[in-house]
């Protein structure tokens, strides 16, 4: 866990009292909504269809047990008893009253949690692999670098009003769980031939109206130069980014219009002029940040404890073990994913009671640590393998042991028209119906890894472009329709999916997905050829034919 210092704490507390004053002035009419809107957005407060929504950042997806308990408290006291985990390592509370928001923010600030940088045209909270620090084979804990970037960018005067919002993601593993190729800047931590730590830097990825996969701008930037390099990118963007047209304002459009060669030349010029500036990181600064991450006191444990062997006789436990438990850096330990995707439930929601129970389980079994991933699931990153059977029992009672991680029912969906004022169509009920259709875990396992992503409008909060199957809500003659894309990927091989044909009506979406999956099962070359691989091999035609033959 990261230990906040006094400066961070003062900053967060000052922000809360400032906001309390602003809310008071808004409620008394001293501030107009036009004046207030920017201020509330800077504090993570949006207006949805039925209420205000508070979005709170979970820096690099790492939460302590007391922090999660505080989230539960906020959900219970100011909201309707639950919170929603999003695709950007945030949590959202959907029903908070403006008058209660300062109190809620103050409660969260008491555990070092805040809503800064969750909205506005600034550098948003830096996201990273939810398994940072525990994933086998990672180069180094990417959160050290995420934290350096966070400290550098938080309320950086030059970059608080960029042409548009700006998102940075970091991964340190070969398998990219942070979706760095669809971020404004993607950083892959690596060691070069001489053993020096640095980054491959990607730029210009993003989804939304015009999706782009990020391009490599520099194959290696040494760690000590990363702030100056990122600043150079931000400067070029700040200078040339389109402020005149909101649809063209993201850096992806600039990179696309200038071309990566020209863009990188501009950045290079900027960088050469400033790389030896105060932004250069000396080893002491990095070591200081590194030292503020406290790692658990792992014990030397057996990697095949008797408890585990005994429990494996239970097929239900075995199924969960194979699905939701991953290898850890330390022998005898495991990373456990908690599915927030129960069959028939809204993806990513957790009740206050579940949050409290998870916090207790984290204290008991995971050195007090919880992780939040962009797939809208949680994880306990440090579970001793001998404790897995006991943990599973408890998770199962809590409805958090659905063995569907990375399977077809592990659906990512945005709030859609049930909550969001920008939506064209609903997303959550589509997800719920799909989980019912594929509720049989044997069937889901037979289908194998398959990611379905659903967005209620082109803003793509549900990352539909990079779902193996993507579902996008559109409006036609006042009714909900959905465009289906297939073959997208969000990981190291990121690609944007291909549209299979005309949009289909609400009631037909689940049938269409069933048809696509049936075609895949008939067409795949081997049982272990994944859905996206079949699409890669055969293209979209066979799927298209099947779907539209009878429609």
């Amino acid at each position, binding site marked *: 866990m990261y230990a906040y210092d006094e400066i961070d704490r003062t900053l967060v507390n000052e922000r809360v009292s400032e906001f309390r004053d602003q809310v008071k002035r*808004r*409620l*008394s*009419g001293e501030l*107009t*909504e*036009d004046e207030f809107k920017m201020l509330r957005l800077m504090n993570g407060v949006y*207006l*949805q*269809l*039925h*209420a*205000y929504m508070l979005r709170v950042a979970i820096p690099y997806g790492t939460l302590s047990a007391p922090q999660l308990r505080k989230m539960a408290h906020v959900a219970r006291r100011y909201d*309707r*008893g*639950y919170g929603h985990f999003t695709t950007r390592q945030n949590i959202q509370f959907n029903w*908070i*009253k*403006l*008058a209660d928001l300062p109190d809620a923010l103050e409660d969260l600030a008491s555990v070092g949690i805040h809503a800064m940088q969750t909205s506005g045209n600034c550098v948003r909270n830096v996201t990273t692999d939810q398994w940072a620090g525990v994933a086998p084979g990672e180069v180094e804990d990417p959160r050290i670098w995420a934290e350096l970037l966070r400290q550098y960018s938080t309320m950086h005067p030059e970059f608080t009003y960029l042409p548009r919002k700006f998102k940075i993601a970091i991964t340190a593993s070969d398998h990219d769980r942070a979706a760095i190729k669809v971020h404004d800047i993607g950083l892959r931590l690596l060691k070069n031939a001489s053993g020096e730590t640095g980054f491959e830097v990607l730029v210009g990825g993003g989804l939304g109206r015009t999706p782009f996969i990020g391009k490599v701008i520099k194959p290696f930037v040494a760690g000590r130069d990363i702030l100056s390099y990122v600043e150079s990118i931000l400067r070029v963007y700040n200078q040339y980014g389109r402020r005149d047209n909101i649809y063209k304002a993201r850096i992806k459009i600039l990179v696309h219009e200038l071309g990566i060669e020209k863009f990188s030349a501009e950045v290079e010029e900027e960088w050469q002029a400033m790389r030896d500036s105060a932004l250069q990181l000396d080893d002491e600064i990095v070591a200081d940040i590194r030292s503020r991450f406290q790692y658990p006191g792992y014990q030397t444990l057996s990697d095949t404890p008797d408890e585990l062997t005994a429990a494996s006789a239970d097929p239900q436990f075995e199924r969960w073990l194979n699905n939701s438990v991953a290898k850890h850096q330390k022998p005898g330990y495991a990373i456990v994913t908690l599915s927030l995707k129960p069959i028939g*439930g*809204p993806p990513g*929601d*957790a*009740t*206050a009671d579940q949050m409290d129970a998870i916090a207790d389980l984290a204290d008991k079994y995971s050195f007090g640590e919880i992780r939040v991933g962009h797939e809208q699931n949680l994880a306990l990153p440090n579970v001793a393998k001998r404790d897995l059977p006991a943990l599973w029992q408890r998770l199962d009672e809590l409805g958090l042991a659905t063995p569907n991680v990375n399977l077809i029912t592990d659906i990512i969906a945005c709030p859609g*028209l*049930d*909550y969001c004022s920008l*939506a064209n169509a*609903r997303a*959550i*009920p589509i997800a*719920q119906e799909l989980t019912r259709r594929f509720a049989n875990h044997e069937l889901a396992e037979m289908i194998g890894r398959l990611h379905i992503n659903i967005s209620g409008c082109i803003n793509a909060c549900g990352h539909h472009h990079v779902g193996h199957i993507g579902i996008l809500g559109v409006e036609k003659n*006042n*009714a*909900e329709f959905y465009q289906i894309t297939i073959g997208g990927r969000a990981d190291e091989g990121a690609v944007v999916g291909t549209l299979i044909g005309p949009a289909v009506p609400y009631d037909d979406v689940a049938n269409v997905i069933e048809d696509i999956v049936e075609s895949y099962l008939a067409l795949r070359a081997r049982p272990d050829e994944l859905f996206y691989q079949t699409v890669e091999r055969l293209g979209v035609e066979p799927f298209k034919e099947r779907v539209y033959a009878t429609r």
Partner: protein
Amino acid sequence: MTSPLQQKIKITGPSVVTANRTWDGIVIYRDTQQGWTDELADAAIVRTADEARALLAESTADDVDAIGPYIAPVIVRDDGAIEPGNLRERIRRQGVTIDLPIPA
């Protein structure tokens, strides 16, 4: 924001002005008494562009109590019952179409 008086306003049938209440964000409708109501049944109904423009202007002038007023279609049944005119407005009025994790 462009003043409603200068906006081109087109309505295709009976309409209301709706917004969110400032202090708690809930859905409200402009009533016939120059105030706000959370009951659609008590909303002021307008049927011409001029009426709509006037109601919107009056609503927009009340920046303290309401956020983002706009004109929304409604259906007026034969018995006088008023219903939201599209799915978005139906969801705004009736709430989410899914079961909440904790029943309200």
